[in-house]
C-alpha cells in the first residue's frame, strides 16, 4: 500500500529501498534465519498486494452482515432465520455470520489490515520527512538529454544568469539548489570538466508526497475512528409512551448494545419526556392509510438539574443531545387498562404498549400481566384495533388512526411464573400455569368494563395512548471518520493531480558569450502537461535573462565586459549580439 502509483521505478526516491513483496529467495545470503523470516513476513504484511487483499476481504466480510440478520440489530430476525433454516443456521452461527462485526475472523482481518497500514505509513512518514529535507540533486551534465530542454545565449555572465534563473524558478515555488558560490567572479571560469559552470537545480511538486501521505494517514484515521465508535459508542432502543419520561441509563433502556469500553457510567445523562405524538394519514385515494407525517413533541434535559428544552422529533430528524442522537423509528398504540382483583383491589392502572405488524392498519397485539393480583395472578392477551370494523364476524382495522378503538381480550388466571426464573418480556406471557377464563375473545370499547368469571375481578378499557420507539446512538467516531474520509479523498486528489518535476538551468561561458541550457523532467507525465509548463518556464527564463541583460546599467556592463575580457577575451559589444539573437 506504499503508493498510489504502481510499479514504475522512481528516480525521485533515492532514500529507502522500495517494498517489493519478493519472496525470501531474493535474499542472496543463502541461509535464512528466523529474523529473516520475520522480516520477510513483515514486508509481506505491509506490502500493497496484501493490503489490497485484506481490504477486499474486509469488504467481502461485510457482505453477510448486510444479507443475513444480525444479532446486534435484529435479534428477532436471527431467531426467525433459525426457525426457517434449521439446518443451515447453526452452521452460519458457528462461522459468526450472525454477528459479523464481532466475529473473530472479522477482527483478525481488521487488525491485520490495520497492522499493514501502520507498517506502511510509519516508514513512509520517515521517508517523506527525509525527502522533504533533501535538496534537489545537482544538475546533470548534459541537460539536452533530458526529456525537455532548451538552449539560448545571453549577454549576462554565467553567475548573473544563474542568479536570474534562481529568482524566476523560486518565484514559481520551486525548491532550489545552486552551484557552490564562487566568491570571485573570476573563478566561474569553465576550468572544470564539461558541464560545470553555474547551475540551478529546482524541484517542485512535493505536495504529491504530502497528498500521498495524507491519504494513508487519513485511511489509518478512518480505521481508528471506526474502532473508536466500536469501543466507546453505544446503541440503544427505548419505547416511550406519550406522557412518560425516561433517562439514558442502562436500567431504563429496553435494548442496550454498548461498545467494548462503555460502562453504565459513560452514558450521557439526558432525560426525555414524550409530551405528544401525532401521526397523520392520507384519508382518501389509493394511498389511503399511508402516513403523511409523524411529529413527536419532546422535552428534554441534557443532564440532571439542567434546563428543560423542547424539540420536535420527526423521521430522519433526530434529536441531538449531549453527543447522542435520538431517532424516531416507530410508533404504535398502548391501550390503557384498569384492573381489579378478586379482593376488589386496584392492581393495575396504566398503559400497556401493544405491538403492531407491518400490515393491518396498526392492528396491535400485546399482553397485560397483572402480577400483583390476589389470590390468583391475572393475565390478558389482547388485540388493539384502532379503527374497528366487523367484517363477517372478524374484527379488522380499516384505518391506522384510532377512529373507533376496540380491544379484544382473552383473560387468564393463575401463576404467571414471575416469582423466579429469568427476566420476562413484557410482550409475551407464559400461560402454562394459567387457566383461560373466557372461551371467546371479549370485545371492549373505551370506557367498557369486563367482569371476569368466578369473581376473579374486572378489567376496564379506559382509553389509549400512543407510543414512539426511539433509537439512541452515540458514535464518537462518526465525525473523525467523516473528516478522515474527506482528508483521504483530498490526499488522493493531490497525489493524482500534483506531479514531481525538476528543472535545471546551467549557464556556461561559450564563444557566443553565455549559453544557458534549460532541462526538465517530470514523473508520470501522462497528460503531457509538463511539456507545456516547461515550454512556458523556458520562455520566461529566456525573457527574464533578456530583460536582465537590457536593464544592466552601463557601469555593470563595463565591469562584466572587463571580467569577460579577463577570462575569455570576448570582444566588446557581444551583449548586443546576444540581444539580437534573443529577439
Amino acid at each position, binding site marked *: 500500500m506504499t503508493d498510489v502509483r504502481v510499479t514504475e521505478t522512481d528516480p525521485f526516491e533515492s532514500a529507502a529501498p522500495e517494498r517489493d513483496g519478493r519472496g525470501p529467495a531474493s535474499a542472496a545470503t543463502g541461509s535464512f534465519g528466523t529474523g529473516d523470516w520475520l522480516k520477510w513476513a513483515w514486508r509481506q504484511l505491509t506490502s500493497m498486494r496484501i493490503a489490497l487483499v485484506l481490504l477486499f476481504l474486509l469488504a467481502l466480510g461485510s457482505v453477510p452482515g448486510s444479507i443475513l440478520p444480525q444479532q446486534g440489530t435484529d435479534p428477532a430476525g436471527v431467531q426467525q432465520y433459525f426457525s426457517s433454516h434449521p439446518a443451515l443456521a447453526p452452521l452460519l452461527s458457528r462461522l459468526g455470520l450472525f454477528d459479523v462485526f464481532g466475529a473473530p475472523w472479522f477482527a483478525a482481518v481488521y487488525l491485520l489490515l490495520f497492522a499493514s497500514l501502520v507498517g506502511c505509513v510509519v*516508514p513512509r512518514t520517515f521517508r517523506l520527512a527525509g525527502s522533504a529535507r533533501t535538496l534537489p540533486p545537482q544538475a546533470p551534465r548534459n541537460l539536452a538529454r533530458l526529456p525537455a530542454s532548451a538552449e539560448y545565449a545571453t549577454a549576462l555572465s554565467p553567475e548573473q544568469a544563474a542568479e536570474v534563473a534562481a529568482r524566476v524558478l523560486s518565484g514559481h515555488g520551486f525548491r532550489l539548489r545552486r552551484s557552490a558560490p564562487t566568491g570571485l567572479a573570476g573563478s566561474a571560469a569553465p576550468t572544470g570538466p564539461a558541464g560545470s559552470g553555474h547551475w540551478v537545480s529546482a524541484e517542485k511538486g512535493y505536495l504529491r508526497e504530502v497528498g500521498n501521505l495524507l491519504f494513508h494517514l487519513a485511511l489509518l484515521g478512518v480505521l481508528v475512528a471506526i474502532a473508536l465508535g466500536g469501543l466507546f459508542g453505544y446503541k440503544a432502543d427505548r419505547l416511550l409512551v406519550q406522557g412518560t419520561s425516561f433517562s439514558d441509563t442502562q436500567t431504563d433502556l429496553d435494548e442496550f448494545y454498548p461498545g467494548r469500553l462503555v460502562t*453504565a457510567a459513560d452514558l450521557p445523562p439526558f432525560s426525555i419526556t414524550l409530551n405528544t405524538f401525532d401521526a397523520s394519514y392520507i384519508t382518501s385515494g389509493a394511498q389511503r392509510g399511508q402516513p403523511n407525517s409523524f411529529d413527536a413533541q419532546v422535552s428534554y434535559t441534557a443532564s440532571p438539574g439542567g434546563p428543560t428544552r423542547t424539540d420536535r422529533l420527526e423521521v430522519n430528524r433526530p434529536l441531538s443531545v449531549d453527543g447522542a442522537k435520538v431517532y424516531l423509528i416507530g410508533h404504535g398504540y398502548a391501550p390503557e387498562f384498569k384492573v381489579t382483583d378478586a379482593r376488589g383491589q386496584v392492581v393495575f392502572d396504566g398503559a400497556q404498549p401493544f405491538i403492531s405488524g407491518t400490515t393491518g392498519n396498526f392492528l396491535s397485539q400485546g399482553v397485560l400481566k397483572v402480577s400483583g393480583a390476589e389470590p390468583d395472578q391475572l393475565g390478558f392477551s389482547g388485540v388493539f384495533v384502532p379503527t374497528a370494523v366487523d367484517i363477517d364476524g372478524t374484527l379488522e382495522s380499516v384505518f391506522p388512526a384510532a377512529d373507533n378503538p376496540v380491544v379484544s381480550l382473552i383473560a387468564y388466571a393463575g401463576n404467571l411464573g414471575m416469582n423466579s426464573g429469568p427476566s420476562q418480556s413484557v410482550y409475551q406471557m407464559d400461560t402454562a400455569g394459567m387457566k383461560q377464563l373466557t372461551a371467546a375473545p371479549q370485545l371492549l370499547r373505551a370506557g367498557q368494563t369486563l367482569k371476569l368469571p368466578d369473581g376473579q375481578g374486572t378489567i376496564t378499557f379506559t382509553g389509549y395512548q400512543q407510543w414512539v420507539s426511539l433509537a439512541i446512538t452515540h458514535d464518537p467516531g462518526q465525525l473523525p471518520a467523516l473528516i478522515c474520509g474527506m482528508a483521504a479523498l483530498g490526499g488522493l486528489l493531490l497525489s493524482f493531480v500534483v506531479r514531481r518535476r525538476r528543472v535545471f538551468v546551467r549557464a556556461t561561458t561559450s564563444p557566443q558569450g553565455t549559453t544557458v541550457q534549460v532541462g526538465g523532467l517530470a514523473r508520470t507525465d501522462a497528460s503531457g502537461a509538463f511539456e507545456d509548463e516547461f515550454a512556458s518556464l523556458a520562455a520566461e527564463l529566456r525573457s527574464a535573462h533578456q530583460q536582465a541583460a537590457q536593464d544592466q546599467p552601463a557601469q555593470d556592463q563595463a565591469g562584466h565586459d572587463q571580467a569577460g575580457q579577463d577570462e575569455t577575451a570576448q570582444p566588446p559589444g557581444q551583449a548586443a549580439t546576444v540581444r539580437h539573437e534573443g529577439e
Partner: protein
Amino acid sequence: MVVLAAAVSAGVLLIVVLVAGWGGSGKSDVTEVDGSPSAVLYAAGHRPTAPDFSGTTLTGSKLSFSSYRGKVVVLNFWGSWCVPCRAEASTLAAVAALYRSSGVAFLGVDVRDTTASALAFTRSFGITYPSVTDPSSAITLDFTSVVPIAGTPTTLVIDRTGRIAGAVFGATTYPELATMLAKVTGKAADEAVSR
C-alpha cells in the same frame, strides 16, 4: 531504517491493542462479599457519596433522602415488572423487619412502574418500608454517576454519613445483606437481631 520503522509500527499497534480493551482493570478499593462479584463492599476511604433526592412515595407523601442522614440505609431499586425483584422481595421484607430496631432504615426506589402495580407488589410481599416513585429514572440516573447501576434490582447499603458502603447488583440474598450490614453497623447479625 526498516527495523526502526517496524519498531515504531509495533509500538503504535501495541497502544491500539491496549486501548482496545485487553488491559486488566484492578480495583483495590472494592472487595467482593462472600466471593460474589455482584455484591461489593467499598473500602472506608473509597465510599462514594450518595446523591440526595426527594420524591413522592407510593402512598402519596413527600420523602426526602436527607432526612435519613445518621441512619444506615438500605436503598433498593426495584419494579413490580421485574422478575428478580419479586425473587428478592421476601428477603428484603424479612431483613427490614429484623434490623428495624437497630437503626437500619429500608427505602425503595420504584423504577419504571405504575403506582397501582407497585402497591399491589408491596401488599403481596408484605413490604412495609416506603418506596419513592421514579417513573423517569431520574433518581437512578443520579446514582448511576457514582455507582455503576446496570440493571434492576440494585441494592445499596449507605452508611451513617451518607456514603455508599456496599452494593448488590442483581437480586440480593440474606447472607449478602447480613454481611454488609454487619460491616456497616459494626454489629454482627445475631447481635442486631437479639436487640
